[in-house]
């Protein structure tokens, strides 16, 4: 007896449209033009990767003490290994490296704690990271307290100086930026005008002229006899410059807060500062965290400009490294190493910021 249940079972899809073959057909060879492009791309990858891999890995020299160890014709990573301390710490005294390490270890710990949801009182922790930690780190770096030897700022350098410059730039420019953003949104005409002029001025000029200005003109502006540390002068320039960018980022956050929030705060009888600090800013700042991270990335890359005013950041120490007569001719290795470090930092931060953006996308967008 034949019992008809309705339909026959569906046939499996043809083998050319599923699995590896299907994927290849769909993504690499969908049309003649794309086939040509794919083949060209594979050829290009072959042209680039084969010599690169052999230079970076296969033919490279990894161990040794001096340039005599570099004989195989590939990259001479011995150079980077030998000058690694210089690249990381600049001319900081070797016996005191632990202080820099400790400072960054504390920072890493704080950042990890801040990103774990279960940690209690994260607000206070964040406040400490922004306000208390810089003080601790400053005394760890410069010493002069609790029996630590004093280390002048002219000996700071390398990656640690790059991190100090960008860290100070962000932490100090955040409060100034918030005040400027509030000022730009203010009802008071003079406050508003002053904020706009300040923001547009610093955003309109290149950082390099700002650094020139802070290194050449600042000494002229101050009363006779006051002398400023070179590093501090660069930092002042960077903070002024960065606070304008930060103000625009914060202003973006303020603009994204629905009007109802402002009105509700007023209806509750809160005055201006209370409604800002308790209602508006917590929401606005949460929204602009990705923007702040992006500003940080830009600043991190921009700190390389201090090379031009002669501070020893990562890039400058690397240049100094391969201009050393013992290591002449290893510029490529130096630049590649610098690029790698900057790339790792910037790329991971941008991924983090994209991640945050997705996580924080919880509403309010009108």
């Amino acid at each position, binding site marked *: 007896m034949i019992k008809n249940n309705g339909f026959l079972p569906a046939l499996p899809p043809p083998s050319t449209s599923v699995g590896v073959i299907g994927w290849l057909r769909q993504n690499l060879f969908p049309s003649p033009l794309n086939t040509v492009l794919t083949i060209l791309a594979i050829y290009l990858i072959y042209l680039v990767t084969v010599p690169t891999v052999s230079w970076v890995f296969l033919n490279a020299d990894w161990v040794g003490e001096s340039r005599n160890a570099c004989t195989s014709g590939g990259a001479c990573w011995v150079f980077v290994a030998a000058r690694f301390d210089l690249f990381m710490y600049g001319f900081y005294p070797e016996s005191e490296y632990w202080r820099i390490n400790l400072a960054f270890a504390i920072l890493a710990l704080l950042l990890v704690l801040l990103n774990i949801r279960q940690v209690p009182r994260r607000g206070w922790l964040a406040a400490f990271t922004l306000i208390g930690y810089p003080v601790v780190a400053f005394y760890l770096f410069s010493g002069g307290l609790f029996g630590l030897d004093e280390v002048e700022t002219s000996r700071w350098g390398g990656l640690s100086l790059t991190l100090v410059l960008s860290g100070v730039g962000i932490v100090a420019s955040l409060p100034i930026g918030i005040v400027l953003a509030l000022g730009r949104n203010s009802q008071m005409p003079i406050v508003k005008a002053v904020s706009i002029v300040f923001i547009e001025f610093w*955003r309109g000029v290149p950082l390099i002229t700002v650094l020139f200005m802070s290194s050449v003109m600042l000494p002229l502006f101050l009363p006779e006899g006051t002398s400023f540390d070179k590093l501090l002068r660069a930092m002042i320039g960077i903070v002024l410059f960065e606070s304008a960018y930060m103000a625009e980022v914060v202003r973006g956050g303020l603009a994204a807060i629905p009007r109802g929030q402002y009105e509700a705060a007023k209806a509750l009888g809160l005055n201006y500062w209370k409604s800002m600090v308790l209602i508006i800013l917590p929401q606005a700042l949460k929204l602009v965290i990705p923007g702040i991270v992006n500003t940080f990335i830009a600043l991190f890359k921009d700190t390389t400009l201090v090379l031009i005013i002669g501070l020893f950041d990562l890039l400058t120490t690397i*240049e100094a490294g391969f201009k050393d007569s013992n290591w002449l001719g290893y510029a490529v290795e130096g630049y590649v190493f610098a690029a790698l470090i900057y790339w790792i930092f910037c790329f991971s931060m941008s991924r983090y910021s994209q991640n945050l953006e997705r996580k924080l996308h919880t509403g309010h967008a009108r």
Partner: protein
Amino acid sequence: MAVEQQPSSAPAKAALWRRPVFRSTVFQVLLVLVIVYVGNSLLSNTLHNLHQRGISTGFDFLSNAAGFGIVQSLIDYQETDTFARTFLVGLVNTLLVSFLGILFATVIGFIMDVARLSKNWLIAKLAMVYIETFRNIPLLLQILFWYFIVLNKLPLPRQSMNLADVFFINKRGLYLPSPIFESGFWVVGVAILVAIVAVIFIARWARARQERTGEQFHTVYASLAVLFSLPVLAYFAAGSPVGWEIPELKGFNFKGGFVVIPELAALLLALSVYTAAFIAEAVRSGILAVSHGQTEAAYALGLRPGPTLRLVIIPQALRVIIPQLTSQYLNLTKNSSLATAVGYPDLVSVFAGTTLNQTGQAIEVIAMTMAVYLTISLTISLLMNWYNKKKQLVER
């Protein structure tokens, strides 16, 4: 007669210092006082310091003779020219590198963007690798890399790379033939103008006809044909009035022709490759910002993929793209000041560098330099605000 009690309808007035108007007035007066005080003390400090160091203020130095050479100048410049002239030379060089950089960055950026959005997986990934690599490496490092590593590996003049005996590439630069315009060239110029006017008319006519009859016209192809054929015809009709000066190896170097010095080449390469990565991202974010429903609606109306992109997606995406693109162009212009790292004679390198060192007039020189960048930025952002206002979505 009972004294009538005045009804106290007006609420009790707040104390003076609690009134918003009073507060904001006081606050603003204080702010002005602080600014005036700080400004005044800065000014008096500066004047005092300048007096102590024996530096005179003012812009008189601009008319003194400069006395130093500049590697590249688009306008006539000799060592005996004034400092004001060095300012002009630097400014023109900055504008040149910014203009060329914007051009190249836009072209590379759009190509990368098309590749990034391509359906071909490999091409899309390659474009992504490009974008993520160059976006995340500091520009200064890239400039130095191009200048000291890549261009330094080029051969010496005697072993120049030779393209068709006309283009030569070596350590000293890229040598191109330079055109010499002869007397009959005005014919070609007129032809170009005529072609532009013709294109405008064709476009208007085609639009009017489409609105009247619904028939479409291949405006783009027709315009390209006119723009190309008219000048070419005029060129031959006038008897080829352009001669070419071809660079020639004389002694240790090439003479004649047009030379792109390696400083300019490195700066341009780095600026355009770096900014192109940002432009590609800006364009991508603009296109992705147009909701997919728009594409589906266009398909439902029977539009093919090409017109969908051209008529539906791009006009909406431009609203997001244009402001980001402008800010990238501004960044490129400001970043061109990194020229000073490789010694390309731009405004910062020539004027805020050499001229400042020679004259010691730090304040005037830095102020003039900043004023140039500020003028460019403010002009562009004013134009941008105007554009945004015009293109803003009208929402209820």
